[in-house]
Every structure is written in C-alpha cells, then in structure tokens.
C-alpha cells in the first residue's frame, strides 16, 4: 500500500509555475478566511468547483479528501448551534439549536472546503521536488526543504515496515482488544518501528558520506514564469475583486 501516489500530468502541473500556484492558494486561503457572508462564501465555493470541473480534477481523490475534512466539521455544525441560547432558533429533543450558531458553523464548512479544494487543485498535483524548488525560491531554509524531501521519501518505506511488523503479529494470532496486553504490544511495535527508523537513518547518512556528502545539499532552481501565470494571477485578482464587490 502506497501513501503517496505519483501525480498524473495535468494543466496545472504542466503549465503553471509552482511558485504562482502556492502563492495563489495561500492568498485565496487568507482571502476566504476573512469572509463571513454565507452567500459570498457559497459563490466562492461554486467558483472553485467550476475550476475543478474545468481542470478535470480526479473526482475520487478530491471526494476522499473533502469527505475526510467534513467528517470532523459535521460535529462542529451540530455543536455550534447549541452554544448560543438567545436569538432565533428551533427546539428539538429538549435542546435549543440557534440559527446564528448554525450560520457560523456553515460558514466554517464553506471556508474549509473552499480552501482545501483549491489547495488540492493547485498544489497537491505537483511533484515534491518541484514544490521543494518553489520553496527554495521563497528563500525557505535548505534544512527544512530537505527535511520535507527526506520525510516524503521515507514515509512509504516506514509504512511498509509497519505492515511487515503487523503481519508478523497477525500470523502469531495477535488480535487487538482493549487490554493491557494490546497496549503493551502496541508500545513494543512502535518502539521497534522507531529503532528500525533510527538504524535506517544512520545507514542513509553513512551511504551519503560514502558518496562524498560534505554537509551541503544542492537543489538547482530552474523554474520560469510563462504567460499562463499572468492569466492565473489576473483570474485570481478578478475573482477576489468580484467577490468583494458582491460583499
């Protein structure tokens, strides 16, 4: 089982500069989080969904990510109307559900979905190395960039290691339940995973030094802006301006 799948070529990762994609996503996130009106947020969500249709985004992947997010947010939509006692609302099962609280909860759901969909469309589609180059051009510390690249590289390796250990436990008839034995076994499993990770990191460092590593990584940045990037910025400014006018 692989956690990170290779990204398929699409309009964004082939034509748009990753620096522009990252900046627009962050700018859009800040802009959306500063909006309060439900109708404007609904319009913004509609625009992002239209963009997803235009870009022919992978529906299954997008749906999976959005549904994971909404699983937590649904709880918020139930709890927030209960936080207010006054104002308009309805009574159900002896509880007062405030309209104001519901609207606040709905606004959060619209904002979170909006930002996530745009981030999946614009940023998730890039290969990690391209994102690393974009981060480098933003003058982010080399250590942080290589930490990200190494982490992405080893998540799948350690995940496979975890499954090997779990399979070994399964063939020894281990069935997890709520007992001290299960807790202790999980502690040993995690401990073994950490020790193997540590050993692997030592081996990686030795292999790097063996190949002449001198405490410096090199990451050439060969990104170039194109006319598409200017259109993307123009579309972003128009969308934000349009939503502000509606507001």
């Amino acid at each position, binding site marked *: 089982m692989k956690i990170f799948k290779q990204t398929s070529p699409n309009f964004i990762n082939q034509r748009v500069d990753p620096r522009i994609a990252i900046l627009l996503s962050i700018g859009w*996130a*800040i802009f959306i989080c500063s909006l309060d009106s439900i109708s404007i947020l609904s319009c913004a969500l509609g625009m992002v969904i239209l963009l997803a249709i235009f870009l022919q985004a992978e529906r299954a992947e997008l749906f999976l990510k959005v549904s994971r997010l909404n699983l937590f947010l649904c709880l918020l939509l139930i709890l927030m109307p209960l936080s207010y006692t006054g104002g308009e609302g309805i009574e159900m099962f002896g509880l007062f559900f405030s309209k104001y609280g519901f609207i606040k909860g709905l606004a959060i759901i619209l904002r*979170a979905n909006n930002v996530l969909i745009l981030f999946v469309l614009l940023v998730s589609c890039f290969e990690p190395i391209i994102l690393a180059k974009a981060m480098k051009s933003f003058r982010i510390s080399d250590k942080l960039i290589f930490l990200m690249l190494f*982490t992405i590289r080893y998540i799948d390796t350690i995940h496979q290691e975890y499954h090997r250990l779990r399979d070994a436990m399964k063939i020894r008839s281990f069935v997890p339940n*709520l007992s001290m034995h299960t807790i202790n076994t999980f502690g*040993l499993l*995690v401990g073994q*995973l950490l020790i193997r990770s540590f050993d692997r*990191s030592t081996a990686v*460092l030795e292999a790097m030094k063996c190949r002449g590593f001198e405490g410096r990584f090199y990451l050439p940045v060969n990104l170039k802006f194109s006319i598409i990037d200017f259109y993307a910025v123009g579309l972003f400014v128009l969308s934000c301006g349009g939503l502000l006018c509606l507001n």
Partner: protein
Amino acid sequence: MHIADGVLDNSVVVVTSIFAGIGVIKGIRGIEFDDIPKTAMLSAAFFVIALIHINIGVSSIHLVLNGMMGILLGWAVFPALAIALALQYLFFGFGGITSLGANIVVMGYSAVICYFVFKNSIKYKSNIFLKGVAVGGLAVILAVGILVAILVFSGKEFYLVASTVAVSYLPVIVVEGLVSGSLLKFIFRVRPEILNVQMVNTKINHLKM
C-alpha cells in the same frame, strides 16, 4: 487534534503563526545537515504511527505520541511537525493551511515541555515505565489544554466544542500514557542512545528497568 481552515479568529491565527515560526526557527537552527536523515526518518515514523488505530469499545483512537516525539527530537520536533502537518493537509486533507501555525503550536509546545520534564526527571530514581506513562499522558493533556485555549480565544461559540474536545480526549490520555510507558521501557532496554537526552547514558544504571 487538527484545526481546519476558517475556524480560528484572524488575531489567533496571527499569534499562533508567530509562536509556531519561533519554534520552527529555533528547531531548524539546532539541527545540522547530518541530523536531517535522523529527524526526517523519525518525522516519517511518527507520521506512520498516527495511522495506527487502537479500538476502544465501538470507537477507535489513533496514537499521537507527541511526548515521545519531543523526547526523541527536542526542539527539532517543530520543523518535523511542520513538515508532517503540512503533508497531512496536502495529501489527506487533515488540518488547514491558515491554521497550520495553530496546529504546530498545539503539538510542538506540548512535545518540547515534555522533553524538558523528561530531561529533568532522569536524575530521579523511579520506574521508567511510570515516567513514560507520565510524559505520554502529560503531552496529550498539554496539547488538549493549548487546543482548548486556542478555541476559547477564537470566540464564545467554541466553548461547547472546546469542552467536547477536552472530554473526548480523556481515553486518549490514558491509552497514550500506557503506550508511551511501554515504548520508553522498550527503548531504554534496547537502544537508549536514540533518546535526545545526553545524560541518559550516564544515568541509565540508576534507573529501575
């Protein structure tokens, strides 16, 4: 324990982002290029550990182990968490981009406090399993405390959400503490040098296994 986009008040977003930035800068300055494979490997390991679920009745909880992360990485836990949380948002949709700072603060400061608690407690003779239980439980209590404070500062509409979160994490505190105890005992017995506490090697003989 992930806060999504659009939940927090703008002032809370700014303040938590500054605190997260301070932690990440301090963590990055503390690590050398030679430490990157170790930090990344442990960051990846904790990313995978977060996928482990333990069944509790009809529900299940996933391990956080931020206390153990703090003990193993010290201040380097901040860049490791920043990467892990950004990747979780990018690839799974958990958390948020404007709330990334808040999520780092919740997990990171609790982990670093546990690191200092553990570092200072090593000189006292006591059962290592109990130390692990205390550190693991404390890490979740601190993380939930910071999370509740962040939600409360964001507005009174989050009071009920914050109290529900606090109550729902009670079983996690117990399970996390016990798993951390068992884990710390195992590491002390098998490979004590991986702990980010320099004095461990000299003090290990005084500790009851």
